[in-house]
């Protein structure tokens, strides 16, 4: 079967590429565009490691055939850090708050957090738990992740939404 031609906006950049029919957004990101931050943990929409933002909404990218989202605005973890690689508030809060261990759930968690904070800059703890309820973490026990997201929200509010944080150890 001939490949399908796809045009989407990925992290503010127009991208065009060919895929096998039926390729998911996750597959397209990882295999055509070299954007491997989104992970494949189950292929069934139950683990959340594939979480990306499509047209402003956090979705399981393993469940979305990329052919159904022509022209969509797609955001992945690779687009989160600022110019020069400086971490955004969520990344910095995860880093400084020890909210990542093996790292496999981290991309999905950060993208779920980004979607939450874009809609709700002052979330309650319950709001955070709801936002990450589709993201499984087997390492941290979730508390450090929840705290990091609340911390990130506070940092972002304190600086009016833009904060440049030095990355590194």
């Amino acid at each position, binding site marked *: 079967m001939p490949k399908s031609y796809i045009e989407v906006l990925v992290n503010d950049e127009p991208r065009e590429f060919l895929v*096998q029919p039926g390729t998911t957004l996750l597959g397209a990101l990882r295999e055509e565009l070299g954007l491997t931050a989104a992970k494949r943990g189950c292929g069934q929409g139950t683990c959340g*490691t594939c979480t990306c933002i499509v047209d402003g909404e956090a979705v399981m990218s393993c469940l979305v055939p990329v052919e159904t989202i022509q022209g969509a605005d797609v955001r992945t973890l690779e687009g989160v850090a600022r110019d020069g690689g400086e*971490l955004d508030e969520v990344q910095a809060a995860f880093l*400084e708050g020890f909210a990542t261990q093996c*790292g496999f759930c981290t991309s999905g968690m950060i993208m779920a957090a980004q979607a939450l904070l874009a809609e709700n800059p002052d979330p309650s703890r319950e709001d955070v738990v709801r936002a990450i309820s589709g993201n499984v973490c*087997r390492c941290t026990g979730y508390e450090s992740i929840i705290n990091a997201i609340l911390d990130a929200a506070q940092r972002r509010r304190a600086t009016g939404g833009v904060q440049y944080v030095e990355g590194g150890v």
Partner: protein
Amino acid sequence: MAIQSEQIDRSYFAEGRDDDFDVIGTPVQRSDALGHVTGRTEFFEDRNPPGLLHLKMARSERHHALLKAVDVAPALAVPGVVKVLTHADVPANWYTILRLIGVEPNDEPVLPEDRVLYKGEPIVAVIATSEQAALQGARAVEVTYEDLPVVLDVEEALADDATAIKPHGTNYFVYEGHHCRRIRFGDVDAAFAEADHVFEWRYQSSPIEHAPTETTGCIVIPQADGRLLIHSDTQACFFTLDNTALILEVPFGKLRVMGGTVGGGFGGKVDVTLEPIACIAAMATNKPVKYVYGREEEMQISSPRAAERIYVKDGVMDDGTIVARKVTLYVDAGAYSRHSPYGTTKAAAHMPGPYNIPNVWVDAHCVYTNRTPSSAMRGFGVTIGDFALESQMDRIARALDMDPLHLRLINAYRDGDMKAHRKVAEGTALIEVIQQAAQLVGHELPAELRTMTVYSPASDGWTFLIKNP
């Protein structure tokens, strides 16, 4: 908001402390955390070499059966399938984790020759140009089974009339000629006869799946110099390297393992069950090959923590002193050994728990059944044993109407005590830990229990006959 560092309590064990710590007690950033939060950490599946082939297994649908016929022709007919590997393609068809140090017997084939011992056991490997083609090929393989009696219970497996499911003729791992690991310390029967109470209870745990967020897998890439580059999410790169070399019958230098990035291991990624066959596939096709578990395979096929059945019989005096402990323990290794013989040894050595009990008898069996082979997980051999022992302590306390912390304190082991497997206890701290925990939760302890230490000798009233330790 930086993480708060814990204060180290330096009031304990004041003599003999050597704690000029520079790093312990301070928050230290993980070296890979920056990669995690930027999405740049490389997991094995983030590699996408050109020409990548995909390996999926055709798996047994029976718990225990002879393989009368395996027809791979229908799989080869599926568009996209390029090869099917059988046991004949495996140079040295044994996976045993400790082969390298000569621990026998070799009991798990990479691919079975004549029979399957658990539902889900891989039978043949289908290699194809896409995952879907490999899955279709695996589905197409036709297997003719002749069912054999199924053994699913550890005690039934050890009955005299049980079907022996293993080629070495028993349903238990043989420990230097014995049917189990044995601890014999003192005389439990004499102590039971003298005890004020005898309590016996039974404990049962289920297999527990690690459920890592990243499934088990590897990508093997043939190199220009004829070597194989193995990208694996194994927890144990050298297990992978060594066992794969033995199975492939190649010099160790032919293999290059890139790993150390594990999306959750917990003990579930220490067996070498994917890389060897993926290597054989890469060599056979001269192409990169990926073999990764789907989520259902990870949950059902990958090794879990062993289920255990444990009987604990205690002889206890009215004041709570435990004078005898008899433990009969069964580890359900499932169909193959993997790490279970080692785990069962640990289980035996761990008895009777952190308590000074003068008479101890343990039989710890590593039992084979037609279940998914169990293996390592977070303190395997010890963790479930502790569940049984500590449940037992709570039940004894309840039966004697005694504070469960008191019961533990008066039986706690101390430095200098001889443990049942004949090692002298040192560096013990159970008493202090219980005291501190009690204080933290506001649980009052009487004065004499608040002041005891792992250094203070047990008083005569609390020590009983120790016969021939």
